[in-house]
């Protein structure tokens, strides 16, 4: 366990075409470029397209090593989805951050390029041991401070003097992930401290049923209308940053908030979870302020929820 050196080495195998879509399929548009995964293969004077890969949470995790890698890459261009542009441009102001569409426009300009360097391949150079993670973890995502202040003011106006806590209760794309990455909304309600806290929904997707329940039960919970959390990432993270603390299941939100230095209580209901959270409880490896609360082996669900109630 925690043999990251070997882990990242094996992770490179995920790029092999034989592994297919269960591995590390790069965005289709990036597959037309030569792939480079070793720093020593980069030629001087040429640009390198550092391409985002996997889900946006993984992308944020991988970008934890970007600032350390920049001195080793002469002309980097970070390529990402359009929705990630504002937050990544603010967080990494010294490099060009462009869209997949822009990368595509360079497909005939390959002589100027080293090729595509998937961001997951940076980790083997910077995070090859547990100590690397512990020593190097510090905030690297810059949130939109103006927006954060606006949201905070808005919530404080409605709920003066209350502690603002962000919540997210459902994540994952595949059904199996969803089971491991969700907590029942009723369970979440049971964790709420109604008297002195106000809760802010940071949950993406359809929350209409949850909203109905909140209104019915007159719970101190705020849903901010008009922001599409899936596409307006910068707004979403700015709202998250307006909270004193976040309680969340394992979703991209935890990565964004953790990388921005926010305090997060991470609820992991099952033993299955992304590798980066490990198998234990307590302080997380990649983000200093993310604390893991995991359902223990043989611990009954109701006991786990009761335990969470005492600590969150």
């Amino acid at each position, binding site marked *: 366990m925690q043999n990251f050196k070997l882990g990242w080495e094996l992770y490179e195998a995920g790029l092999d075409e034989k592994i297919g879509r269960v591995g590390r399929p790069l965005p289709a548009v990036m597959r037309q470029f030569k792939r480079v995964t070793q720093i020593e293969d980069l030629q001087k004077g040429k640009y390198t397209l550092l391409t985002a890969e996997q889900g946006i949470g993984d992308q944020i995790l991988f970008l934890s090593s970007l600032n350390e890698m920049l001195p080793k890459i002469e002309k980097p*261009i970070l390529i990402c989805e359009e929705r990630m542009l504002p937050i990544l441009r603010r967080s990494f102001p010294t490099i060009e951050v462009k*869209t997949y569409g822009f990368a595509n426009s360079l497909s*005939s300009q390959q002589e*100027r390029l080293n090729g595509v360097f998937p961001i997951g391949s940076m980790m083997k150079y910077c995070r090859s041991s547990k100590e690397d993670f512990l020593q190097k973890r510090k905030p690297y995502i810059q949130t939109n401070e103006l927006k954060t202040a606006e949201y905070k003011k808005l919530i404080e106006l409605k709920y003066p003097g209350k502690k603002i806590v962000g919540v997210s209760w459902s994540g994952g794309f595949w059904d199996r992930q969803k089971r491991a990455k969700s907590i029942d909304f009723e369970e979440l309600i049971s964790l709420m401290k109604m008297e002195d806290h106000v809760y802010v929904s940071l949950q993406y997707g359809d929350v209409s049923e949850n909203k109905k329940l909140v209104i019915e039960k007159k719970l101190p919970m705020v849903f901010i209308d008009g922001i599409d959390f899936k596409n307006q990432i910068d707004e979403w993270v700015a709202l998250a940053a307006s909270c004193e603390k976040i309680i969340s299941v394992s979703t991209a939100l935890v990565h964004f908030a953790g990388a921005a230095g926010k305090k997060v209580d991470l609820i992991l209901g099952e033993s299955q979870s992304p590798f980066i959270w490990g198998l234990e409880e307590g302080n997380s490896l990649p983000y200093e302020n993310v604390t893991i609360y995991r359902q223990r082996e043989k611990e009954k669900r109701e006991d786990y929820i009761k335990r969470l109630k005492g600590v969150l």
Partner: protein
Amino acid sequence: MNSLYKQLKEHLPKNTAILSDKEFLLINLKDYNINQLAPVQAILESIDVSVGYPFRVLLSFIDSLATASKVNDFNIILTDPSMAVAAYVAWVRCGGSAEKGNIFAPKGMPNFPIKDGIVGEILNDFIKKINNNPTVKFDKEIFTFVIGNTKTASQTAFAATNFKDVKKGALILKDFARTDAYQEREYLEEMMLFPTVTFEGHGYIIKF
């Protein structure tokens, strides 16, 4: 950039894909293939240019043709400096560089923005390669784009004369089907050049 979409989104139906800048808005409902126009959007954005729908279709056509041509070397002959952006799209997508590609254009090319990074590098190479000499002498054996419009008879004549002896290449004429461009069309016919006309009214001939 404050796009049209940002200004109007509250009044528009919900949709899955939008392509927009300050002059242009395409909503992907059912009539247009947004992906056809999207690749050129990145190039336009990178040099701070916004254009309307008909010209964008022409640029997308040039983009596809240039990308597919896979040429080792190429010429671009521009008959009207106001279409400099079309020459730039062809240049980028053919792999234009300090070593590859030649551009002939009349005097009066617009100023391109000053850019850093890879876009700045490509733009610098493009600008350095522009040959404003009025006597156009080029290798007719290599792939040649002749890009123009039908604004004036002299521009059309210039385009046709240069394209006539090209072995491989494309003649691209913006607004070729414009009603009052009948003399220009007749001139091309006399030279045995019969462009295909697009829905937007542009004309093109491809020689391979």
